[in-house]
């Protein structure tokens, strides 16, 4: 069965019968006729036989991967944030921010490409920008550079700002489990003001595995 997490900029794909591990493909390189059996993500309805709500996929994936009764799971995507909080094994709270203040992975990746930065070698800034809006946050980078800051330091302040936003959006937890591509960004991880357990990019695929039908032909 073909499972897919159709992210805005990257697709995570798993053929449960052939792949040992999921594949990652830039969304722009996905063939136009590609269809999954069961999928989640922004394009899931158009590209799959059955689509699963992203928050449900996240929650079910979290339950599968985290052996705890109470925890917070935050997914930082290309352009949005999602979180689910479990308390005593039950979903107690959740949220999904698709607004400008959620400015996330895509922006972080664009900045690294434009300024030729490596997030693995960047210092964690002491302070950061207040990024209530992605566009205004970018302006703060430009302003800081004009004021004499290095491009690296200015971008680091931006990343710290969105990391703090993400943490606050998840309810200021002391500890959180992180999902999504930013798990691979050491600067972002270091800017989160709490204990972080990175779970990687395939949490939503794990959630899809929880929803596999007994009879694959039931998918239409």
């Amino acid at each position, binding site marked *: 069965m073909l499972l897919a997490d159709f992210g805005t900029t990257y697709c995570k794909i798993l053929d449960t019968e052939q792949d040992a591990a999921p594949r990652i493909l830039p969304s722009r390189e996905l063939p136009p006729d590609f269809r999954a059996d069961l999928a989640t993500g922004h394009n899931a309805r158009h590209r799959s036989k059955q689509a699963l*709500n992203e928050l449900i996929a996240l929650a079910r994936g979290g339950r599968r991967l985290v052996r705890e009764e109470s925890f917070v799971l935050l997914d930082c995507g290309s352009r949005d944030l999602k979180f*689910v909080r479990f308390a005593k094994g*039950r979903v107690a709270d959740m949220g999904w921010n*698709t607004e400008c203040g959620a400015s996330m992975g895509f922006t972080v990746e664009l900045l690294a490409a434009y300024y030729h930065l490596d997030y693995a070698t960047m210092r964690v800034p002491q302070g950061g920008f207040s990024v209530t809006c992605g566009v205004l946050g970018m302006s703060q980078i430009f302003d800081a550079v004009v004021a004499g800051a290095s491009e690296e330091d200015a971008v680091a302040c931006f990343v710290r700002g969105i990391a703090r936003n993400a943490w606050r959006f998840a309810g200021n937890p002391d500890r959180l489990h992180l999902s999504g591509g930013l798990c691979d960004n050491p600067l972002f991880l270091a800017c989160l003001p709490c204990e972080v357990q990175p779970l990687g990019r395939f949490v939503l695929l794990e959630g899809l595995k929880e929803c596999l039908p007994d009879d694959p032909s039931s998918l239409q």
Partner: protein
Amino acid sequence: MPERVGIVGVPPLEIIARLNREGAEIVDLDEPQVQESLGRTATLVPQVYCAILRTVVLNALHLHLDRVFVDVGPGKCNGALHIADTLADLLSVPILCTENRDHRPFGFPLCTTAMPLVDRFVRITKSVQSAAPHEARPPCKALCGFWGVPPRDFSVLKPFPPQTHVFGWTRCMENKTPADLDLERHCDPHLPTVFFTQSFCAKSALAWRLGRQHPQALVIDCDVSPSNSARAKIEAFLALSGVPLADDHASG
């Protein structure tokens, strides 16, 4: 020719009863009555403002009304008080402000019976136009709760199963006691509950407070229509709480 009377909020029963006796046609201005863009109100009301009150102004711009009753005060909101002034500027008919403090309970059978949620909201909002007692209906065992005002766009209600109990100001509305804050505060901590407000509504503070105290709550606000993420949050909250979605809503 019967008089055509607009209402905003829930005017006192005495006024509704009088309008019923006079055979007046009552038009609920809180609900969309015309197929026009809310953008048409942009020169009269801030765009960052309650979508229901913007709808009131939009309706008033396009409907021929003989009188308008605007309920203001604890049974509605200060926003309506100020919109009453806007209506007075716009229209050459009497704009009559009321403060509904009715406390005789009519009951809320629709809030607790089993029926598609959209249908119940249509009936509850329609019931404001009548002073007649409610038809008795058997209560059902609730699977989840919806707390809040009738939304500007009822499509937000579609994922909820028929066994959803309704709380908040909608229950006050059916009970014909719109200023009963104790009833408005009431919710069931044993039911997964969605606390809903219109964006930019003062009631959002109450929704947040009740939602924080509730062990299984989703607090959500919508402006004109629910965004995809708002719909997804509701569907996910219900599904992950073990509540079956309405028949035409898959878990995706």
